[in-house]
């Protein structure tokens, strides 16, 4: 088990390293001159040269990369070419917002998918089970931002139950924070929940046909407790894979939902930085998001080992 985890850890570190090089090269090599880009076409050559020197963009790429990644490892993402402010602290703030959103969205998705998927599987021959499957199929087809727009219309504009957007930090006013989180989390979670429902259904359906479930019934467990005690953990293995992929999707999907609900998350910071041609910030944010995805994949892999004793080796 330890060997497996260590091996995965090595792969994680290597992947993060390669990904950081890819992100760096992408931003450094392709666009031409970031200083020129940041200052605009009307900037004088002297100003551009001065800015290049100020940010060290005139040095060789290899030096720049190690300088950048060395800083990042210590939490220093450099100074924005545009605003000249430290990128790191802003990034941390924004990341917090996005993580709340993603966490809440995932919770919504799970709260929908586990019961709905199990129900659809247990009753797959009945009309109501088929109806749940069909609904999930339609839910998959609705983009998160459309769900957001509709939810805002209903719950914020018409019913006035919840705010249509904006962010209140949890430490400032927990109630308001939660109220503000509901609609974004729902728009993110409903759609992912629909996707996940299909996988939970197929995993549970698969489990229902397993011999060990019949053994459990033959011990005197009634159908639902048998599924609960013996089925869910086994069904969880394939679902966790999808869950990992979904967390990655959610992390990026949050970009769109943050735009709909005007939330100061990583996604809106990314879009703002792109709009203001602030490439160093873009580079930092992209790195954080990509590392986030890789980290999720790593955790999923380790989780497998916990869930499935067959992977632990004897």
């Amino acid at each position: 088990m330890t060997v497996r985890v260590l091996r995965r850890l090595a792969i994680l570190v290597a992947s993060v390293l390669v990904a950081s090089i890819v992100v760096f090269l992408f931003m450094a090599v392709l666009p031409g001159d970031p200083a020129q880009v940041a200052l605009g076409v009307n900037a004088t050559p002297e100003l551009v040269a001065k800015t290049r020197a100020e940010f060290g963009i005139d040095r060789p790429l290899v030096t720049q990369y190690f300088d950048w990644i060395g800083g990042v490892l210590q939490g220093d993402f450099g100074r924005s070419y545009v605003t000249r402010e430290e990128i790191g602290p802003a990034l941390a703030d924004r990341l917090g917002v996005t993580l709340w959103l993603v966490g809440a969205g995932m919770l919504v998705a799970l709260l929908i998918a586990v019961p709905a998927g199990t129900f659809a599987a247990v009753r797959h021959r009945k009309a109501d089970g088929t109806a749940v499957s069909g609904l999930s199929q339609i839910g998959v087809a609705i983009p998160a931002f459309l769900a957001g727009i509709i939810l805002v219309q209903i719950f914020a504009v018409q019913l006035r139950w919840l705010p249509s957007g904006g962010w209140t930090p949890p430490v400032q006013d927990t109630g308001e924070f939660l109220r503000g989180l509901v609609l974004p989390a729902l728009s993110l979670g409903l759609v992912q929940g629909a996707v996940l429902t299909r996988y939970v259904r197929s995993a549970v359906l698969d489990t229902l046909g397993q011999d060990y479930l019949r053994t459990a019934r033959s011990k005197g467990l009634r159908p639902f407790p048998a599924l609960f005690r013996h089925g869910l953990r086994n069904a969880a293995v394939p679902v966790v894979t999808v869950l990992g992929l979904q967390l990655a999707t959610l992390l990026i999907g949050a970009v769109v939902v943050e735009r709909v609900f005007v939330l100061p998350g990583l996604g809106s910071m990314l879009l703002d930085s792109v709009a203001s041609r602030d490439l160093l910030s873009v580079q930092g944010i992209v790195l954080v998001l990509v590392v986030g995805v890789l980290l999720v994949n790593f955790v999923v892999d380790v989780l497998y080992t916990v869930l499935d004793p067959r992977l632990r080796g004897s």
Partner: protein
Amino acid sequence: MTLEVQGLGIADLVRGVSFGIARGERVGLIGESGSGKSLTALSIMGLLPEELAASGSVKLDGRELLGAPERELSRLRGNDLSMVFQEPMTALNPAMRVGAQVAEPMRIHRDGGKHRAAAADLLDSVGLPGTSRAYPHQLSGGQRQRVVLAIALANNPKLLICDEPTTALDVTVQARILELILDGVRERESALLFITHDLAVVASVCERVLVMLDGEIVESGTTRDVLTAPKHEYTKKLLAASDLEASR
């Protein structure tokens, strides 16, 4: 009678099956695959697939099982009534330790603790000492079938049903499993319904035999009578095809 089956029918796959098993009696049910043996067993357990319904009567100690509410049936299953399945490789939950799986029927049907220790003792008695903390994938097929047997015997059932318990196993371990089944039911005075297509196995385990063909019982009697003086054409064919004659 521990078990009394009267006019059992399942769709048109099993028709008019009637037999009884007395306390401590060991009865074999033979026939080729598709003859309805396993369906008969599952209908006694009340575990037929949803789309199949059983008609007729199945009584355990005079109590009607067919049509009994699930709540009542689940109180009998794993307690008075238990079953060993054909495929040991898939019959156990891969994500649960063997000891916990053996302890489970006791936890379901009995009050009080000490189930873990009792499970360990049971595993001991089927020749698997110290395996409580193993996972199924760490055991061989024969060892897993012993675990399944331990589960089935955990609450000293009145009736044990074994559905081809040795078919999936190596010849070398078959004999040991049969021995354990025999010891298990003798100790507990459990009735045994033993399903197989193997006449040699029936000869060594059962006192009485039922021969099933295309969903009906075509011949029944003591093992000795049926195997030495078969009346039905099909039984004769079965005997001729087996090497039982040669081995005796």
